C-alpha cells in the first residue's frame, strides 16, 4: 500500500496535481459518452453517494461527530421534493435548493438539543433520529407521506427547457452538484471555519479554550451536512420519480459512515473514492447474485484492514494556505 502514499506525495507538486485533476475531470466528463447506460447509472449512484458522503464528511470527518442517522436528512430532502412537487406542482429542479434548506432547517431543529452529547451517546441519538424519521414516514402522519407506499409521480426536472431524463442527464446533474459542493467544501476546509471544525475534532476542550464557539460550529456542521443530504434527496427523488421509506434505512446511514471512513476522515477526494467503493463493490460481485453482499461485507472489513486510515487521507503537511508561497 506504499504506492498509494507515494502517489499522494507526487500530487503535492502543483503541475502533477493539475495534470491529475485534468485527467480526472476529462474522465468524468467523457465517461457517459463511451460507457453503457448501465455504467452511467452506476456512475450516477457514485455521484449521489459521494454527495451524501461529503455531507456526512463535514459532520463526521471534519468535526468528528458520530452521526449514524444521516439517511434521515436524505429522506427529508427527498420527501420535501416529492410532496411539494406532487401536491403543489413546484418544478423539481426549483426544489433543489428548497430541499437543502428544509433538510438543513430540520437538522438545526433536531440537533440543537442533542449537540452537547459526546461520542457514542451522540451516535445512538442520531441512530434513534434516523429511525424516528423513517418510522414517521411509514406511519403517514396527516396522509402526507403516503405511508409505506410513499409518494409517486414526481415530475422530471427541467433545466433551461431541457428535460432531465436519461441516465446521462442525471449523471451530469449529480456530478455538477458534487463538484460544486466539493469546491465549496475545499474552500471551507482552508478557512477559519474549516480549521475550527478540525480543532473541535482534535480536542474539543482546547478548541473551546482557544475561542472556538464549539456549539455553534457543531450546529453549523450538522446544518451544512444535512443541506448536502437534502440536495442528494432531491436528485434521488427526481431520478426515481417516487420516494418510499425503505430507501432510507439504518443500513444506508451505516453505508455513508463507511464511505467517510473508507476514504479517510476529512478528505474530499477520499470521500468520493469511498462512495465509489461502496457503490461499486456490490456491482462488481453481481455475478454471484445472492452472495454479493457477503463479499461486500468482507470487502469493507478488508479495506479497513489494509488501509485503516482510509484510502486517501487528507495530507495537511502538503497543503498550501491562503497567500502562502509554495515551498
Amino acid at each position, binding site marked *: 500500500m506504499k504506492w498509494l502514499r507515494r502517489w499522494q506525495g507526487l500530487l503535492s507538486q502543483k503541475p502533477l496535481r493539475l495534470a491529475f485533476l485534468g485527467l480526472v475531470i476529462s474522465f468524468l466528463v467523457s465517461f457517459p459518452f463511451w460507457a*453503457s*447506460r*448501465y*455504467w452511467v*447509472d*452506476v456512475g450516477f*449512484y457514485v455521484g449521489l453517494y459521494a454527495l451524501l458522503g461529503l455531507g456526512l464528511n463535514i459532520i463526521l470527518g471534519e468535526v468528528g461527530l458520530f452521526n449514524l442517522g444521516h439517511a434521515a436528512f436524505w429522506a427529508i430532502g427527498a420527501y420535501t421534493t416529492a410532496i411539494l412537487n406532487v401536491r403543489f406542482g413546484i418544478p423539481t429542479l426549483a426544489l433543489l435548493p428548497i430541499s437543502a434548506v428544509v433538510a438543513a432547517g430540520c437538522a438545526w431543529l433536531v440537533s440543537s438539543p442533542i449537540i452537547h452529547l459526546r461520542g457514542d451517546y451522540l451516535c445512538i441519538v442520531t441512530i434513534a433520529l434516523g429511525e424516528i424519521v423513517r418510522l414517521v414516514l411509514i406511519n403517514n402522519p396527516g396522509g402526507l407521506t403516503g*405511508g*409505506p*407506499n*410513499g409518494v*409517486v409521480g414526481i415530475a422530471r426536472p427541467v433545466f433551461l427547457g431541457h428535460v432531465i431524463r436519461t*441516465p446521462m442527464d442525471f449523471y451530469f446533474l449529480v456530478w455538477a452538484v458534487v463538484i460544486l459542493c466539493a469546491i465549496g467544501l475545499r474552500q471551507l476546509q482552508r478557512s477559519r471555519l474549516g480549521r475550527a471544525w478540525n480543532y473541535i475534532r482534535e480536542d474539543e476542550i482546547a478548541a473551546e479554550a482557544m475561542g472556538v464557539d464549539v456549539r455553534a460550529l457543531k450546529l453549523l456542521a450538522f446544518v451544512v451536512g444535512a443541506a448536502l443530504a437534502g440536495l442528494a434527496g432531491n436528485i*434521488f427523488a427526481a*431520478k*426515481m*420519480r*417516487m420516494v*418510499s421509506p*425503505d*430507501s432510507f434505512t439504518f443500513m444506508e446511514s451505516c453505508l455513508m459512515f463507511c464511505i467517510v471512513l473508507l476514504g479517510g476522515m476529512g478528505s474530499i477526494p477520499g470521500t468520493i473514492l469511498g462512495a465509489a467503493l461502496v457503490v461499486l463493490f*456490490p*456491482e462488481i460481485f*453481481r455475478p454471484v*447474485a*445472492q452472495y*454479493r*453482499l457477503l463479499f461486500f461485507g468482507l470487502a469493507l472489513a478488508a479495506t479497513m484492514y489494509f488501509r485503516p486510515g482510509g484510502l486517501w487521507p487528507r495530507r495537511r503537511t502538503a497543503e498550501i494556505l491562503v497567500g502562502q508561497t509554495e515551498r
Partner: protein
Amino acid sequence: MKWIIGLSVVLALCGWAQPILVGFQGPLTGPWAVEGDWALKSVQIAVEIVNARGGILGRPVQLVVEDDGGTPKGGTLAAQKLIAAGVKFVVGTYGSMVCMPSSELYEEEGVVHINYGCTRVDLSARGFKYYFRTSGRDDSQARFFVEYVIPLFGAKRIAVMHDNTAYALGVAEDVLRFMKPLLDEGKVELVYYDAIMPGERDYTPALTALRDAKPDIWYYTGYYPEWALLLRQGKDLGLDWKKIKAVGSNACPISEAVKIAGLDAVVGAMITQEPLPAFLVEKYPLAKEFVEAYEAKYGPIHDSPWATYAADAIFTLAFAIEATRSLDPAVVAKYLRSGQVIGEGITGPLSFSPEGDRLGVPYMLLICTEEGKSALFDPAVHGHLVGM
C-alpha cells in the same frame, strides 16, 4: 453437395441453439430475499418446462438473472444491467416501490416487462405500453368477492365488517366501490357495514347487530385473531354459519382460526385468498406439471402466490411469442393488450386489460372442511357445509 447440406445443418442448429434471452429481476438479497429466491426457482422451473416442450419458436429460453436487493435504487441498476445485456423480455419484480422506477426504464427501452409481485393499483394507470402484471391488484380481492363470491351464492343481503386498520378498511371500501352498480340497480342490499375494535375480547354486541341485520353473506376484511373470536362467539350466540355465509379475507388463515376458535365454529367458513400452487394442481394441468417439477428439484412447494405469478409470467411470454411468431417486443406487447385469453397458465387463463392488468382476477375461495383443513371451494364437494 454434401458440404452444403452439412453447412445448412450446422446453420440450422445454430439458429435453433440461439437462445431467447429472458430477464429476471428480483430481490435475491435484502429483507425480501425469500420472495426473490422462491420466484427465481419458480421461474427456472417454468423455463425448464418451456424448454422441455421445445422452447419458444423452436429456440430455447435462457434466463438472465439480476438482483435488485428489494430497493428502488437496486431496481434501476438491475433494470439497466438487463437492458445492457440486450434482454427484450423481463420478468420482475417483487414490491411496487421497487417496480415503479425500473418499469419506467423498461418502458423507455421498449422492453416487455411482466410484473409478478406488485399490487399497487396505480402501477397500471401510467399509460405504459410494455407493462403487464400476472398478479392481481390491491383491489382484486374485493373485486373477486363482489364479482365471484356474491353471485356464487346468489346472495342478496350483504354484510361487510372491518376493523379500521388501513388494510381492512381498504378492502372494505373497495368492496363498496365494486358493489355500487349492483346496489344502484337494487340487485343486492348492504344490510350491515361497520367496524369492530381489534384487541377487544367480547364482540357479542357487534354480532347481535349482525344477527338482526339478517345477511345472506358476511365478509370480514380484518385479521384472523378477531375473526376467530367472532366465529366462536357468533356460534355461541346462535348464528347459523350455514345460513349466513361467513367469509374472511386473506389475512384470516383457516388453520389459525381453527386453533383459536375450535373446529366446530370454523367449519364451513370461507376465505378469499391469492392462488397458492398447492390448491391449483387439481384445477389446471400446467399447475400440476409445475408443482411436480418444482418438488422434484427443490422439495416442498412454497406457499407464495407471487412466485407462482412469476412462473406464469414466463408462460405468458411463451404463449404470446408463439402466437405472434414474433420476437418484437412491440408486437408481443400489442398482442398481450388485446384482452383475449392467450393460454392457460398455472393460475388459470391468462389475459390482460389494455392497461396491462391481469383479467379474470385469479383469486380463490378456500373453505374449512370437516377435518379442519382448507380446501379450494367446490360446490359439489363442499356445498353441504354452507347449506347449498
